[in-house]
């Protein structure tokens, strides 16, 4: 009858004003306990001000094999970067 507790991914906001960041994963029977475990496992030294826990099974990830088709289109668009444009020195900082 034994079944392993499901896996959860843990995200922590390190300080006010920063994004939540993935810090690792853990097993827990439900969201409430996942939160408590995350507190014990990942914030024993004031590492955070907020925790998100998400069932790992709920995450959709891009496949490594799609890396090319997914990201290459952006490579071709150099004009999206400010350095693409020459601004004459006389104009000053822009």
């Amino acid at each position, binding site marked *: 009858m*034994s079944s392993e*507790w499901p896996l959860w991914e843990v995200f922590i906001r390190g300080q006010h004003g920063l994004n939540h960041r993935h810090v690792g994963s853990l*097993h827990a*029977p*439900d969201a409430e306990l996942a939160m408590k475990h995350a507190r*014990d*496992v990942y914030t*024993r030294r004031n590492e955070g001000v907020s925790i998100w826990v998400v069932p790992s099974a709920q995450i959709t990830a891009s496949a490594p094999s799609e890396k090319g088709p997914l990201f290459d289109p952006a490579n071709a668009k150099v004009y999206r970067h400010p350095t693409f444009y020459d601004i004459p020195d006389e104009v000053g900082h822009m």
Partner: protein
Amino acid sequence: MYAQMVKSEATNDDPEMLAAFQARIDAGERIEPKEWMPEGYRKTLIRQIGQHAHSEIVGQLPEGNWITRAPTLERKAILLAKVQDEAGHGLYLYCAAETLGVSRDDLTEQLLSGRMKYSSIFNYPTLTWADIGAVGWLVDGAAIMNQVPLQRTSFGPYARAMVRICKEESFHQRQGYDLIRKMAEGTAEQKAMAQDALNRFWYPSLMMFGPSDKESVHSAQSMAWKIKINTNDELRQKFVDQTVPQAQFLGLTVPDEALAWNEDKGGWDFSEPDWNEFYEVLKGNGPCNVERIEARQKAWNDGAWFRDGLMAHAKKRDARRQAAQMAAE
């Protein structure tokens, strides 16, 4: 080390894929779980990270032994925090291993059945309070030697777990040194206890790095894959060079008559530990092997109703919530 004598697994992959993989490693790229990797790389890492995780978990036992008998409330709180950290380290590492496709329960069962090992060092008993100092100072000190370079290991989740662990490990070593320093500066009897702890833990600590692996093919493969960064001898030398002056500061004597400063190599010459003893401990014949696995087995068995109960409760609550939702719609 925490992962001793990890044999690299043979790989039966396409040579071209292997070459491309090696090129990524050589370029310093990190390998992430879902990316292609040679079967040997995957299996060796599962064994290495698993063994490392098991060591953290079993490593709680010799120290946990003293929590109820710590001499002051402050020392007790410190020891509790340290042992809790070890549990955390085990959990970070189990999660890293699981990204390679092995389940937590499978890892646990392999530990309990003896198919996976943990570090030889945790098969030695902690007989006196001074031993708790020696464990922090020497055992965690030796662990740090190995773990600091592993922060640059090629497998992303392992490297990231190591970063977290190293941050916390420094507290472990310093509290141990602080503890044994109190003893070494105490009464003659306390100083004798500190010396006795050093006498008993010195060689087992040197064994943690494993036997010389200069000629080992397994080691060469693991180093090429950057899942092992230094040879065992390099790390052992570094550990001795770091630790001898620390012992001298305490006025304690390293139990090695051959210990001598070698100007040419800029390091200490020292005696090898008894490798027969090491192999015996690995085979299960150390002073505490049976006790350690029995304790883990008991915890696993006694916790079964609790793990299952919480799971059943979560499922029941989920079902109730779903039913309520259906009724509302």
